[in-house]
């Protein structure tokens, strides 16, 4: 019997890549977002509490922390984003003709993905300078005004970067909301992709569940942002 033609190299792993993309969106990237929001939300409890949370993270130590940061945060985000960009490029959005709520969510998932990626790239550069290697710091990060976060003076430097200008605050607002939507809606599609919710009724319930998750995350994220934008460090 004639079998389907052999797939292309990418094609052979397409299913794997797409499922991996779906998975790392939640674990670790989604989980990190949640932890990150919790940490930053603590600014509302005062700069000292925030400093304590940051110190807790940094207590991992100068070798462990970068390893964890790179393997559990940075690389997964980059992988998720790059695969995501390919997915965006391979779709042909048609919201103009098919104006359904789900189609809007599909389209918005792609927009927020791109926005979140751009925002995260800028945010990480602005606060951490991407790479902590001394040549990079001297020749790229500092001349471009990045790497402003100092773990030892966590509250002061973090609030300062948010309060740099109204534009920056606005960027944070958009970025945070984009991330939140992307995660919450991503969880919903993930549930379909992996077969957690199958029937239309289950998918409606899941929509509500994910909306609640998104709302919770938005409260956390915006609370953190509000704290960063309003806390004044003397």
């Amino acid at each position, binding site marked *: 019997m004639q079998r389907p033609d052999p797939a292309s190299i990418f*094609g052979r792993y397409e299913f794997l890549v797409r499922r991996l993309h779906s998975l790392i969106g939640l674990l670790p990237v989604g989980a990190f977002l949640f932890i990150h929001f919790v940490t930053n939300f603590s600014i509302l409890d005062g700069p000292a509490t925030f400093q304590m949370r940051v110190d807790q993270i940094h207590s991992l130590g100068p070798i462990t922390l970068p390893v964890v940061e790179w393997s559990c945060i940075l690389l997964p985000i980059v992988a998720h984003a790059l695969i995501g960009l390919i997915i965006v490029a391979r779709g042909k959005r048609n919201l103009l003709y098919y104006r*359904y709520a789900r*189609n809007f969510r*599909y389209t918005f998932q792609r927009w927020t993905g791109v926005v979140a990626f751009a925002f995260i790239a800028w945010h990480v550069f602005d606060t951490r300078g991407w790479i902590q290697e001394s040549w990079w710091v001297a020749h790229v990060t500092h001349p471009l005004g990045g790497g402003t976060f100092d773990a030892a003076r966590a509250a002061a430097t973090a609030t300062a970067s948010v309060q740099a200008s109204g534009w920056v605050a606005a960027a944070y607002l958009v970025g945070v909301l984009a991330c939140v939507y992307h995660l919450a809606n991503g969880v919903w*599609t993930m549930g379909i992709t992996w*077969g*957690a919710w199958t*029937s239309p009724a289950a998918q409606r319930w899941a929509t509500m569940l994910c909306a609640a998750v998104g709302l919770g995350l938005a409260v956390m994220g915006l609370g953190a942002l509000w704290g960063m934008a309003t806390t004044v460090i003397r």
Partner: protein
Amino acid sequence: MNTTSNSSSFHRPIASDCQPGQRFYVRVLRQDGPRKRRYWQRFALEYEADMNCISVLQRIAENPRTDDGRDVAPVAWECNCLEEVCGACTMLINGWVRQACTALVAQLLQDRPGEIELRPMTKFPVLRDLVVDRSRIFAILEKILAWVPVDSYYDLGPGPRQSQEAQQMAYLYSKCMSCGCCLEACPQFLKIELEYREGETPEAYNARLRTANMRAYIGSHAIAQVELFNSNPIGAMNATERLDALVAEGGIQVCGNSQNCVRVCPKGIPLTTAIARAGRAATRHIFRKWFDR
């Protein structure tokens, strides 16, 4: 089984403000052949009782003259059953993918007075005017082994018994008429149109086209067919092969969950339920493949 089809929106009661003899226009996006220039033409028609887009095209065929009085070649289009069971007359009507036979002129004019717009489907290569080449849909059915592999056609007794519930679900999936609406509305399903290369034989071209078809996204109609045949007691005997096809390149993973398919399906097939169930089966299949062999 709950389906989220909105097919009820097709047949709202008609306000009878369309009178026989009333004049209206039909704008058709034409194309003389594959990859040729596209152009619009407008025809003026008179309303007749019970008119649908098929009778519109029949009137144009009878008298192919544009509203500015030019004699043109009649518009080419595809149709057969005229009662929305064969799937042939699928096209874009006022921008919306559907069958021309169930597109009633009175309703269309009620929604957009004065003019009806007809375009060919955009996800399939245009052969001429409103006729597109949908052979890819059938190629996809080959890829996913959409049949029950019986031993022979000799008399071997009755088929397996089935519950009413299983039959009802299978019947829903089995109504798929391969019209392509779900694919047209799917943002993840993209058009494939190849050009002949210099000195290429038809055989080589067809082989290349086949490869392209086999690698590209299968679409929700095919995912529902995998569910149909894998839930059939005999079909389930080669479910593994179908699941292999389902997770191959262009398989279920390409779905982006826009769920347009279920909204435009004229047969109300629960396509998104099929996608989620097939997703679950694919998850199980892949785990079994890696950890259970």
